[in-house]
């Protein structure tokens, strides 16, 4: 297969496993490109991409921007903070105004769940979801799986433990979909208040004991505690959270085996993960960042193939 089965990348749940294979295969080629002395290809010279970030982002925004530039696309950036959204403009109006400037692809992050799906029904452009509220963050899940595949050879049959604030995490949901689609086993671990009530319906088991979970898994994907999304107190104190669910060197040393440590960033050092673990050889956190550019290049390239001339 050399074409995606979808017209937009709205979430992993819309993808087939063959789509993921194609994205990974294409990303392999782009990974080679971004390690060349001149890290740029001219494929997307006639494509214009708008990056619409209605919510804060550093890494994802930079990664998308770099991926687009490496493919030679023209890009326009938009951050809600400095825009007419503050003056009361609706999402469709904002986007249609931008599309009137002849934009082919829209990369959007939005605080509302389903913003990407909504947009894809109303505007004539390819939509890439760069995170919609607590729902999905497909490119992050793709780069996570890609990094696991790179480190362990494949994703199929591997055991992955997602640790921490699963409730507020779009990374967790997209990861669960992506990993299961590729034949991996997923468990989640965290304070009961931060585990979604219906997580069992996704075929995901909950592990309440961190040490047991780590003993079971091949890879631990550690999530950030999203203080900014917590409207109520979900656990008594950060200190208690760290004692029960924080990953440190002592607990890893006590396992009797090596596991791979991942984190989508930004890290709260000393809260969900200690510095010596984050910077250790078992950690592939910076590989995730590098692979993020290759994965996003692949997704943009494959969707741009479908843009009509």
């Amino acid at each position: 297969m050399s074409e995606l089965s979808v017209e937009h990348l709205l979430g992993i749940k819309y993808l087939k496993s063959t789509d993921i294979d194609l994205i990974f295969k294409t990303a392999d080629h782009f990974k080679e490109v971004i390690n060349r002395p001149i890290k740029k290809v001219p494929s997307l010279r006639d494509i214009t991409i708008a990056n619409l970030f209605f919510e804060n982002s550093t890494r994802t925004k930079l990664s998308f921007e770099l991926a687009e530039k490496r493919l030679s696309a023209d890009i326009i950036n938009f951050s809600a903070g400095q825009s007419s959204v503050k003056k009361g403009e609706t999402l469709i109006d904002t986007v249609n105004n931008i599309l009137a400037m002849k934009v082919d692809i829209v990369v959007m992050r939005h605080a509302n769940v389903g913003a990407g799906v909504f947009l894809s029904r109303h505007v004539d452009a390819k939509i890439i979801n760069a995170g919609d509220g607590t729902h999905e963050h497909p490119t992050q899940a793709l780069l996570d799986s890609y990094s696991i595949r790179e480190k362990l050879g494949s994703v199929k049959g591997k055991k992955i433990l997602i640790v921490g604030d699963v409730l507020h995490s779009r990374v967790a949901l997209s990861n669960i979909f992506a990993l299961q689609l590729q034949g991996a086993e997923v468990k989640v671990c965290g304070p009961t208040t931060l585990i979604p009530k219906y997580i069992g319906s996704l075929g995901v088991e909950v592990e309440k004991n961190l040490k047991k979970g780590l003993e079971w898994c091949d890879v631990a994907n550690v999530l950030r505690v999203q203080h900014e999304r917590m409207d109520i107190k979900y656990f008594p104190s950060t200190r208690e959270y760290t004692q029960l669910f924080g990953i440190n060197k002592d607990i890893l040393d006590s396992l009797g085996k090596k596991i791979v440590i991942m984190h989508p960033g930004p890290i709260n050092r000393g809260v969900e993960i200690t510095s010596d673990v984050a910077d250790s050889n078992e950690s592939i956190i910076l590989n995730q960042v590098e692979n993020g550019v290759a994965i996003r290049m692949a997704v943009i390239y494959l969707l741009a193939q479908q843009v009509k001339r």
Partner: protein
Amino acid sequence: MSKKILLNSKDIEIILHRLACQLIENHNDFSNTILIGLQPRGSYLANRLAHLLKNEYHVKQLQLGLLDITFYRDDFRRRDVPLEATATEMDFLVEGKHVVIIDDVLYSGRSVRAALTAMQSYGRPESIELLVLIDRRFSRHLPIQPDYRGRQVDAINEEKVLVTWNETHKKDAVYIELK
């Protein structure tokens, strides 16, 4: 669909030897020369020539790269079937080197144009030459001509030149097919 044989394996072997000798004539010991096969099909010819130069003509130092030009093509989004990329294996720079681009069939010249653009990502070569097994005359869209050619063919546009290799089809041969 009719198919007629243009070169058999013996013809191809003779041609490969001639091309190897012509390369030696211009590039001496190949110390400052890089051979680059265009992926996917040019790589078979490039590998074959490299093997011949090393084993039959005792060229000691030979640098061979395989270049994928998919991302540099000018027909992105213009084709019915999406382009599929192949791996690039270039673990060196071409800065200051004499480069020989190798492909099986030269037709419109667009692949070679893409290869010239792709080459810029690896530095500024001293010179670039082109070697092809089959040169289809009168079919060029761009002002590109080979420096070394195996055989010149006057095929009409409805005809297709098909090169098969031992590695892929268990037989070295060149056919002309009527589409």
